[in-house]
């Protein structure tokens, strides 16, 4: 009654009719708040999560202390204090790094990078970095083929002055490296707590991209006629961007 009949209609909905269809949907506020709360929890934003529970008058089943711990671990990694982060992880979830060998290696390698960074700033005493690599990383290198490769690449940092690094090496020194490892740790801790390690918002954003791509590739003329639907985020992006990032 619906699909076939409508796809045979000669006239396709105009862009404004599509906009109206979108406007007519009334998303559930509680769904929206669930999405945001979930994002704040998974992302590890404890103070925002607490405020949101208050302001949105929702009462999530959440262990705020666990979020705080997770947040402190990630913050330590962001700050480059990997030693503390590893200690906190071992304190919080003792078996986590035992079972996540790759994650443990990633943390240790990041610690090595931070030692190298410190040596660059401290006028070239590379001894602490060398000792650390020899004692902590080298014994683990045989576990997986990529460990050795990663270790070698990291050690190459010592051979170049910091301002003459090739792009792949410069990437190691970038703060994004810390962010990446912190995100991995965050996910591992969440999985370990039997929490979905990924924010629902992330899935939703991908779902949104997916449905658009599907419609564009559809055999149905009606679906292909759907215009690009704007989020309304870009015009306000400048102000949001400056305040958010």
């Amino acid at each position: 009654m619906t699909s076939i009949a409508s796809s045979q209609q000669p006239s396709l909905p105009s862009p404004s009719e599509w906009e109206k269809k979108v406007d007519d949907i009334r998303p559930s506020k509680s769904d929206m708040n669930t999405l945001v709360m979930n994002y704040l929890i998974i992302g590890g934003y404890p103070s925002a999560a607490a405020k949101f529970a208050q302001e949105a008058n929702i009462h999530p089943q959440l262990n705020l202390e666990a979020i705080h711990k997770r947040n402190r671990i990630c913050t330590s990694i962001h700050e480059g204090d990997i030693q503390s982060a590893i200690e906190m992880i071992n304190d919080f979830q003792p078996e986590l790094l035992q079972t996540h060998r790759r994650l443990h290696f990633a943390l240790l390698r990041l610690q090595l990078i931070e030692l190298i960074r410190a040596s660059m700033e401290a006028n070239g005493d590379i001894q602490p970095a060398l000792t650390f690599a020899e004692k902590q990383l080298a014994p683990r290198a045989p576990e997986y083929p990529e460990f050795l490769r990663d270790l070698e690449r990291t050690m190459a940092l010592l051979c170049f002055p910091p301002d003459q690094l090739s792009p792949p090496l410069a990437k190691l020194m970038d703060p994004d490296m810390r962010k990446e490892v912190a995100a991995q740790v965050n996910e591992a801790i969440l999985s370990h707590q039997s929490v979905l390690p990924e924010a629902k918002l992330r899935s939703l954003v991908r779902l949104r991209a997916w449905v658009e791509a599907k419609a564009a590739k559809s055999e149905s003329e009606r679906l292909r006629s759907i215009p690009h639907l704007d989020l309304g985020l870009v015009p306000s992006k400048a102000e949001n961007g400056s305040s958010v990032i």
Partner: protein
Amino acid sequence: MMTSNITDSSIMATYNPAVSSGTSTLLPRAQGSTWASIVSGQPSRPRIASTGLRGQRNGSSANLSDLGSQSGRFHNPALSNALNTLSKISQLPTSVPSYLEDSLYSERLLAARCPSANSASLLSRNPSMTSLALVAQARGGGLKLDIKDTSLLQEDDLPTPLPTRWNENDKSGGIDISQDGLDVRFLGPNKVTEYDSAAVRADHHMPRSCGVYYYEVTIINKSREGLIGIGFCAGDVLLNRLPGWEPYSWGYHGDDGKIFCCTGVGKPYGPQFDTKDIIGCGINFRTNTAFFTCNGRNLGDAFRDIPMEKKLYAAVGMKKPGEHIRVNFGQERFCFDIDGYVKDERLRAYSEIESMPVDDLCPPLEEAALMQSLVASYLQHDGFVETAKAFAQDLQAEQSALNSGRGGPTNPVELMEDQDAQRRQTIRTAILNGDIDNALELTQTHYPQVLLRNEQINFRLRCRKFIEMMRQSAELMNGSRKKAPPAPGSGSKNKGRTFETYAEDEDVDMDEDDGETRSDCDMENGVDNYNNRTAADPLSQSDMLAKLLEYGQQMQRDFKDKPELQDEMEEVFSLWAYPDPMVSPVAHLLSIDGRAPVAEALNSAILVSLGKSSRAPLERLVQQTTVLLRELGEEGGSAAFINLHNWINSVEYLPAS
């Protein structure tokens, strides 16, 4: 009386054909109250039944027989239109087979059945209140289905009913269908020619929005040859041949185990049928393929490239006397694990979605930045001022921690001191605390146009204030008894406070807490809100009731020229009817859950008056995704397997990685 009884029962049968099949029986009571709400929700109707229907609505005893006689007597076109729509709704299944639970089809079914879940009516504006609406329905409290909803439910928007039985009017001669419409027997003459067979189609076609449609047939008895064909065909295919032998017809035949795709020449496929065999037939609208099962075993793809331009009906055909089958359209457990089959389809879609890049969605934002912007703009847009600040601070802390490696200067995050956002949040908080007067006053001061231009919102605020007064009065009357409404009130509030003890780096907003306490627990202060008296001036029960009466009468005067608001107003005023409204059938009206939707509506109206979009980008994202999912799902693609609401609320929607 006699006549009316006869009419009644025949109308029952007409409007509720599912009753006899026994598969999807409607609860007459629920339907009755829904119907009564339609009637009473029509502003333009002649007030035909101001005593009859209205009385029944409140008593929730209106049923189809009443409607039947009403509509028969009054020939009101609006009424019969609504009746038509309703009879179509009543054909829809009350439940779907388990494999369809997450499908677009069942989502649309729910929307058609419970329009109040998405409607704009007073009680159900809060989308989180689906359960409340259901409670209202269960209590017979008048599930809202006002004229707006009815007009939304155009015929095209209604999902098609699922097949429930073989169609008595769509069969060839020589076939007998049992009373319940599920058994088919071949009675025809012994000497049929080579091509003479008899087939029958199901009563409804298989909707593409199901994603996958599946049914099973039990061979109860077969002739020596076992000439039984199971499959599907278009609605205009001749029924004097077995499924598969005609254009637009596909079938699996029991005499030789061959499959036939629109031709008389078959291909070897599966086993021959035996008595007691259960043969299943499934169509996958994503791949446009069909498969058959035998006693729970999938026999593999039978047909590919099934054309999508025609509606397809489940069909069986037979050729020899004594042949007898029985169909399972989902009213019983299936032999084959179709739930698992559909789950695999769903997981397939999920993993496709998981690997979807989002870079093109809102360039130049990449995924993490996009999510941050969506959340930040939502918090700001919807007036969660404190959260927005805390979020910005969290992000800043993260950024400065990251920058410590660079040694560069950290850019301080500029906090948005948006005066309007602050005001909107204050107004929201007032409403959430039940202090409607304060909200009205603040709105009047800062956004005087909003209440003038949005009568509906003004009305809802006034209704809410009446409800709050009623709450106060009821609590006063109950004396020491703790507040009763079924709301996540005090208990969860305490949980909220526990947060704060952990959150060392934030200042606890004592004012807001006080507000909660005052309106929820402290009677005298609460009364103070409404009467501008001092807290030391207690109000007696009779004073309170007098105030209530006065306020109610004022509301009636103010809105008496608005017929479209009368029903909602009466609903609210029905609280009067009970000595203790807290335990009345309309107690749900008193729930503090009703505050949030009023706050949202006012917030949106203020935003619109400020020339801003009434929707945050995150909300747009959800809206767009919903529309696109529906459109895609109608075509029967992978999107039909995804239910956005379940997706958001589910805890196990991801493939185990």
